[in-house]
């Protein structure tokens, strides 16, 4: 019991209700009859929690939440998905992925459909599972689809290290990991993005540490707070940033760490070391955001041998990890994911939302992924 009570405090409905009222008051006060305060929640898990807990609808009219590029599946460029599908079609190859990639539509098909047609695509829960499969079937190549942020990258690095150490030669990584801070910078530079404050991702900050996000306040002057995932966590973060906004011209306190029980200033040093041992920053294509310099993870040094893009010969859509194309990628017809990832519109404003595009018949990845903004809003309606 003792261990749980700490966390129960953050789930406590009476504390949440109290904070909710304070946040509402503060926001109403700040907007002063004008438009709702625009706050971006960068992390997909926050998007989902805002729906699930009812915070988004409870604050309707006072705070307008816009979802950022914080769902790993949703920011994966469509051409990258096409490449993964094309790889899965190669005879003999076993492709391992987290479940949420399965139904993401590529240009013509999805991994799910390819599996029904005979491709060997397996859902796993950890990169180590993929390594285990590679051990069990040494005669077949096993490729792990590396889609994720700084949160999953350390576990992938661990699997790579182990593969190197145990000389597992049939294990490969399709490197498509992305980094959150460079994408944040791109958003902050983008004059299209009109947001007053930011709720920063709790899980990513656990790895990177608070300092990695300080630039949001110090370089760009936006009120921002790192939040955990229980209702009280999220409301506390909101309360703090609204307070900063109310203080107006007073000196800004920098990024506020509202998740200190998990996030330290420097983050998880061991995980960061693991990442930099195996990976190096490379330019990467983001769905809807285009090319962002040094925002992806490529394999480094002796780990390059695990690069599935190098090893396999399959019909390409995206060329190399990045071929320098910066134009808007050809998204599925009509999908407005790009605008959603920049916070320009909310999913309900997409004409396809809940008509042509539903979780059963997804047009874009944001409708498939459990952390996708469109799926969260769909279940929210």
């Amino acid at each position: 019991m003792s261990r749980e009570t700490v966390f129960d405090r953050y789930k406590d409905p009476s504390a949440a209700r109290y904070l909710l009222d304070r946040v509402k008051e503060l926001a109403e006060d700040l907007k002063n009859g004008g438009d709702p305060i625009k706050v971006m929640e960068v992390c997909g898990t926050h998007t989902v929690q805002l729906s699930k807990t009812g915070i988004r609808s409870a604050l309707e009219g006072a705070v307008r939440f816009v979802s950022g590029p914080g769902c790993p599946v949703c920011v994966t460029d469509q051409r990258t998905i096409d490449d993964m599908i094309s790889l899965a079609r190669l005879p003999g190859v076993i492709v391992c992925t987290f479940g949420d990639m399965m139904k993401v539509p590529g240009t013509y098909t999805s991994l799910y459909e390819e599996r029904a047609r005979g491709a060997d695509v397996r859902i796993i829960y950890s990169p180590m599972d993929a390594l285990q499969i590679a051990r069990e079937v040494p005669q077949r190549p096993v490729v792990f689809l590396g889609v994720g942020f700084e949160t999953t990258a350390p576990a992938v690095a661990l699997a790579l290290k182990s593969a190197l150490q145990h000389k597992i030669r049939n294990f490969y990584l399709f490197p498509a990991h992305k980094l959150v801070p460079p994408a944040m910078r791109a958003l902050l530079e983008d004059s299209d993005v009109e947001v007053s404050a930011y709720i920063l991702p709790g899980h990513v900050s656990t790895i990177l540490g608070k300092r990695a996000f300080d630039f949001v306040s110090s370089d760009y002057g936006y009120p921002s707070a790192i939040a955990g995932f229980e209702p009280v966590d999220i409301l506390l973060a909101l309360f703090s940033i609204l307070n900063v906004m109310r203080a107006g011209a007073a000196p800004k306190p920098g990024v506020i760490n509202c998740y200190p029980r998990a996030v330290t200033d420097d983050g998880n040093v061991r995980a960061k070391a693991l990442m930099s041992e195996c990976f190096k920053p490379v330019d990467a294509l983001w769905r809807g955001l285009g090319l962002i310099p040094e925002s992806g993870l490529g394999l480094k040094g002796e780990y390059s041998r695990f690069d599935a893009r190098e090893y396999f010969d399959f019909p390409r859509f995206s060329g190399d990890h990045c071929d320098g194309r910066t134009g808007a990628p050809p998204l599925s017809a009509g999908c407005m994911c790009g605008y959603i990832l920049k916070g320009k519109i909310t999913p309900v404003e997409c004409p396809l939302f809940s008509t042509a595009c539903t979780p059963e018949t997804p047009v874009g990845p944001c409708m498939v992924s459990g952390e996708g903004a469109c799926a969260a809003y769909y279940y929210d309606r």
Partner: protein
Amino acid sequence: MSVDINDRITLAHGDGGLKSRELVSDLFLKYFTGEPLRALTDSAILAQAEATIAFTTDAFVISPLFFPGGDIGKLSVTGTVNDLAVMGATPRYISASFILEEGFPVSDLKRIVASMAKTAGEAGVEVVTGDTKVVRKGEADGIFIVTSGLGFFRKGRTPLMPSLIRPGDLVLINGYVGDHGVAVLSSREGITLTTPVSSDCMPLSDLIESVLETCPSGSVRCMRDPTRGGLATVVNELAEASNLEIVLDEQSIPIREEVRAACDIFGLDPLYLANEGKVVAVVDSKWAEAAVGAMRSIPGGEEARIIGEVRECTGCGGPGSERCGRTDERSEKGRTDLNRNETALAPARPGKGRALLRLAIGGTRILRTLSGSELPRIC
């Protein structure tokens, strides 16, 4: 010669010859001891006074075959028994067909059959007929089991149907949700939880009998076992079938802390996880407390409670509005008619209806059905 426990299943165990007969006599008949089965006739002959019959069938494929709190054998009996019981019928007979993969260990088969026999005993049903086939290696995953079940309605009892649900009724559950889903998932993925979770897999015949005995005929409207798709899916089905709005209270739904924690890790929602020993009952509000008491008096019902209520659906602008999908008129006369068997058996008309969740921080949100199976991410 007899079946060797250290042996493995071969194609000969399914070809109808000597080895097949040995498997039947030395293994199956050792555990399944009902008279109609021992006769080994082509059909079981069941003497039964004429009564309304409930008949159901289900196929069981699960990995892993053995999980904390149960195994495929127990599941194959409880699944079918519970499908009969939730209709208001008393489960009586079941059939069991086995599809075995060549090379399957006889010792595992024995464990599974023993577990089926034990569960059948607890549920008060007899295994009266069955079949075994063996397929080549790679053509099945160890063992598949198909069971069918027959149940009978006691005198004065009629089938429980969603069409009987009325605004004002209360929604009950007999205990914690999500245990089975977490138990199977964590043992399949080889993830050790700090506090291990066992499947809730159990036959519900006694528990349901206790409720039906306590509450007067007609006061228990409908029951469902929230297996695949979990509580959220079942409540949606009930709302849709009755064209009514069902509001669950987030804080009243019993979920173990360890199940919540595991769900956080797997990125799942306990409301969508499978249960194998749970029943959702919709009961006339006057009898809801009594029904909870009846559940609590039976093992597996200790944590029974009221988790929600039924009301007129307002999602589309209210009954009678243009967008309302409801087509049946619920007159007072209709109400009495519905208590009669034949009307109750009329299929529920698909309409709108919806399920809501009353949130801990206030307000409600729609409780949706999921598309396909949940595809979790760990991040």
